[in-house]
């Protein structure tokens, strides 16, 4: 409700303030009403219960994971950049942000110009500054990582620049003269938003349809809370829409409320960026027992719950998978007060797709990581009580289960073994379960482009989705311009 009242012209600072006040107010109420309830539960309380931790501890746990740099910290960090020639960090960035340039702009006291350098390449540069696995992208490539094992803090500097600009409510881009062309975008996640913004900037009218009640896609529903505090995802969408020329329809799912054939008929071009709605199954007996859930649903619920004290969490939580979703679900379970949280991954730790930094984050939060084990059965009556795993062997012939098994006590299980594309429209060529696209994002259907997690290419990262959406928009623009 709150964000709808805020017009696109409102300064973000005021917006944040409102959010803060509302959060504080709700916490205060919780304190006075259920103070005794919060005390009655603890990490040791059996079953799945809410309020395992005091309100203050929860607020602390879900505060900004990497607090923003202040002006001084930013200047000190910026001074470390060597302004490399043909800088490796730029090459490592999926959106090719001119990192040395924007850091130099920060160092010379012009963070607004720095933000424009970032946003010109990556319109969701604010969110990417928070969620990018910089330790495996730009910061891994930073020559100071090679020199002394301490890269320039590129992610934090990017956040400093984009936050500075966005706090002023400034949108540094303007629309070209309207072209009269209309483009349909399916999905208001990173790919769809990046595509829509670039198209709108070029003067085209864009209509986005999104299945969820809020825009942002995984930025809104799939990122750990402590990485995107103060409702940043919505603030960023509001800010992005300031470009104008973009209409957003919520609650419209492709195949259910919107048909691709209609979009093709009614629009000059279509971009598909609906992400992956399906969740892979464990294929272990007993998977259907209650309290065995999808990690993505747990994360989405968590993100949409302002008062974390109302969220029930198990005492013994088992997360199955080895990616960022697994880490996000496990860490947040721990932060909610679960006593024992275990990530179980079927291959060796080095093969986990969660970065070393993320793994460390999990273990330092108290999460145990068990590798080389795959689920074979979920035990329990109606609800799960234990999960049985078999140790695996990763051989040249593939992954095989050994005879050695063990059981983990579990009153809640989160499945995080990957998402899949569901309900892809007929006529689209798929590849590896995703929409096949070329480098420009073109699908097998003329006039239909795709990008983000639902399409081939990319690493299922926010930043690669942004790059694909942006590049598809450029191709669509070229295509529409050629026709004109």
């Amino acid at each position: 409700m709150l964000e709808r009242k805020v017009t696109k012209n409102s300064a973000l600072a005021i917006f944040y303030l409102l959010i803060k006040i509302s959060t504080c107010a709700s916490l205060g109420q919780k304190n006075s009403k259920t103070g005794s309830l919060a005390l009655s539960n603890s990490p040791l309380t059996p079953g799945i219960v809410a309020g395992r931790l005091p309100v203050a501890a929860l607020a602390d746990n879900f505060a900004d994971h990497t607090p923003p740099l202040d002006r001084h910290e930013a200047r000190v960090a910026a001074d470390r950049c060597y302004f490399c020639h043909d800088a490796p960090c730029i090459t490592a960035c999926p959106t090719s942000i001119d990192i040395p340039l924007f850091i130099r702009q920060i160092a010379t006291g012009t963070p607004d110009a720095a933000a424009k350098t970032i946003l010109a390449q990556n319109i969701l540069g604010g969110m990417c500054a928070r969620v990018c696995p910089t330790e495996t992208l730009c910061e891994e490539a930073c020559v100071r990582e090679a020199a002394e094992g301490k890269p320039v803090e590129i992610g934090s500097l990017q956040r400093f620049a984009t936050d500075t600009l966005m706090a002023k409510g400034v949108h540094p881009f303007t629309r070209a003269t309207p072209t009269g062309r209309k483009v349909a975008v399916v999905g208001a996640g990173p790919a769809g938003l990046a595509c829509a913004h670039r198209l709108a900037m070029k003067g085209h009218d864009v209509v986005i349809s999104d299945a969820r009640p809020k825009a942002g896609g995984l930025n809104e529903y799939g990122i750990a809370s402590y990485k995107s505090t103060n409702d940043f995802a919505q603030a960023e969408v509001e800010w992005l829409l300031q470009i104008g020329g973009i209409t957003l329809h919520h609650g419209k799912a492709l195949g259910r409320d919107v048909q691709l054939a209609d979009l093709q008929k009614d629009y000059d071009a279509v971009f598909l960026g609906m992400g992956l709605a399906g969740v892979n199954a464990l294929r272990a007996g007993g998977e259907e027992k209650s309290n065995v859930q999808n990690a993505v649903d747990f994360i989405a619920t968590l993100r949409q719950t302002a008062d974390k004290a109302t969220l029930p969490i198990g005492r013994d939580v088992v997360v199955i998978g080895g990616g960022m979703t697994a880490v996000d679900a496990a860490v947040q379970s721990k932060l909610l007060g679960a006593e024992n949280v275990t990530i179980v991954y079927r291959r060796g730790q080095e093969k986990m797709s969660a970065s070393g930094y993320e793994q460390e984050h999990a273990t330092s939060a108290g999460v145990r990581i068990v590798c080389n084990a795959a689920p074979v059965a979920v035990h329990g009556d109606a609800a799960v009580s234990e999960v049985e795993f078999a140790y695996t062997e990763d051989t040249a012939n593939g992954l095989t289960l050994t005879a050695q098994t063990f059981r983990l006590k579990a009153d809640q299980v989160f499945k995080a073994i990957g998402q899949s594309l569901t309900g892809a429209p007929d006529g689209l060529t798929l590849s590896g379960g995703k929409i096949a696209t070329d480098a420009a994002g073109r699908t097998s259907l003329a006039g239909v482009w795709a990008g983000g997690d639902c399409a081939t290419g990319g690493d299922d990262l926010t930043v690669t989705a942004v790059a694909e959406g942006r590049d598809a928009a450029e191709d669509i623009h070229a295509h529409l311009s050629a026709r004109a």
Partner: protein
Amino acid sequence: MADLSSNFIGITSPNPFWLASAPPTDKEYNVRRAFDAGWGGVVWKTLGSEGPPIVNVSGPRYGAIWGADRRLLGLNNIELITDRPLQVNLEEIRRVKRDYPDRAMVISLMVPCDEESWKDILHRIEDTGADGVELNFGCPHGMAERGMGSAVGQVPEYIEMVTAWVKHYSKMPCIVKLTPNVTSILPPAMAAKRGGADAVSLINTIKSVTNVDLDHFSPFPMIDGQGSHGGYCGPAVKPIALNMVGEIARHADTRGLPISGIGGVTTWRDAAEFMAMGAGNVQVCTAVMTYGFKIVQEMISGLSQYLDQKQMSLNQLVGRAVPNFVEWQDLNLNYVTKAVISQDDCIKCGRCYAACEDTSHQAIAMSEDRTFTVKDDECVACNLCVNVCPVDNCITMKTLPKGAMDERTGREVGDYANWQTHPNNPSSHAAE
């Protein structure tokens, strides 16, 4: 530990590190603490004539430039000589010298350019117990407008005249402090020598404007919307000072004239460089104004360790580099070096490549995997890559031995030969 005790024109001090005449030496409180911290001597902040003290601005006195991480590289000031009553200064000097007899106490002086004024001030300081005087002919701002400071230092005849007065009316050793705001430092130094100076000290500050306030469009330091030039000092001026010290040390007419080296001395290494270039001791100001008195501990330990490693006495260090400080025409044109990039140390930033490719001799190659290598057939050994490389000693210069082929010129490295005998030099032909 090497013996650092110093004897400079008969003034002894436990080490050759003095504080220059400046705010740090303005009063008893500071100087006592400086001596307690280990400074070998001070030149007390400049005293003026008896009478109402001068006044300073009450806005900013300093401007600065900074390097990475806001490291102060250069400082400029518009502060004048002491603004405290003469008698107060004299009493404090007397007390401090009495309590620290082993430390050097030199008084800086600046009075109007007439014999009576100098005679008077010399008389007044006589019984302070001070070890010597330093004549401030250097200050380039404020006092210069009143015919003192650098206004004197820029006219060799005045330097000689005033120095002679001082030597006439005082038995104290006399150091003449020179201004760098001249086209050549040699005439002022020669004038000081002619006037009977026991030593010169240099450099005083350089006329400067550190920056312009882009909101008020005024030079900085800005006083009520206006700025005047100040005097520049700190690490940024060290190269200018080293050259001037060296010029005096090597010139036939000034050779042997003791020099107190001043200008951006920040570490023991800077001090050692000044001394190798001919300074008998050094004076420090900006470094203590940036970091406090404690830095002298590093300077003492560093210089001791260096002298121990070199098995050299302090006196042996003084002037050691002077014979090698020559004119360009004396440089060996048959000396050939080539840059070498250590692949083990290279962090692949590519700054050497950008510098060489964009602005120099296109002598560095960059491969697909960012391996940077020097093209010996293009490298003129300019050293720019060494200077822009962020990793110390990653790029070095290898010297080609005699007889080796210089791939750039296709010629073998020959014996020493300089421009004076070079075939391209019209003068050398004329001489034949």
